[in-house]
């Protein structure tokens, strides 16, 4: 199995942007509803919850769930 170019780029960027401290999936999940509402309201969610933003940039599964949640909320609003 060989990786495609986009995946390789994403993995390398994830590695090089790793910070000294990150929250885990549990802590990200705890804050995800607050983060989603901030994004929906057009507020700077990344500034308000920087550790959540960082986790979403490094965790594909949490990012996938956030994107699905956001898409659902945005469509229903």
């Amino acid at each position, binding site marked *: 199995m060989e990786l495609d170019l986009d995946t390789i780029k994403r993995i390398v960027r994830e*590695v090089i942007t790793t910070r000294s401290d990150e929250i885990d999936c549990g802590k990200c999940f705890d804050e995800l509803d607050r983060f989603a509402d901030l994004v929906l309201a057009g507020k700077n969610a990344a500034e308000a919850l920087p550790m959540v933003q960082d986790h979403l940039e490094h965790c594909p599964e949490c990012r996938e769930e956030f994107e*699905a949640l956001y898409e659902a909320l945005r469509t229903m609003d």
Partner: protein
Amino acid sequence: MVERSNWRWTADLSEPGPVRDAALDDLRAEMVRGLSYAMARHREVTDADIEDFAQEALLKVLSGLPSFRGESRFTTWAHKIAVHVAYTELRRRRWRDVGLDEAAAPASGLLPQPLTDPSAQTEKHAMQQEILSAMRRALSEELTDRQYQAFIAVRIMGMSMEQVARNMNTNRNALYKLLFDARRKLKRSLLTSGFSSQDVLSAFADAAV
């Protein structure tokens, strides 16, 4: 559906009776609607699946009511739980028969050499090859066995974190810590190899549109 404030949702759902039953009906309908949008791109998800996900999520909402902090809309909090239930099940189905054997594969077989990037000029292309070469070396030499296994399984093979955690006899949060530690080591190795963060980001940026 009755419009409810956060306070009204938690109050209506708290005590058994017709008020709670009505609130549960409304919340179930809300979750089904949300899941239909959230899962729209997953063609394998059926209407019956969505009903099952909503039902499981409803139970989690009820048992988790005391933990709702009111920092978001109640419905956003509930939808978050429903989406998580749905994705947990989808990943379980996708990966249930896959073990970790493939995650023992050497990284050299997974990171292509040479990398083919049509958007890269010669100099950028050369930089990409050097960085990937350093990554392959770091993967093989810097990580512990568990870090290597976790990184290959989750990040390279794309396996579900729950599945990998189960196979490694750990939990998802501990697995995330393994992956974080692996990334830190890989990053440190790239930096000590002489690449700056900017070098790496520039070499692996998406092509300009």
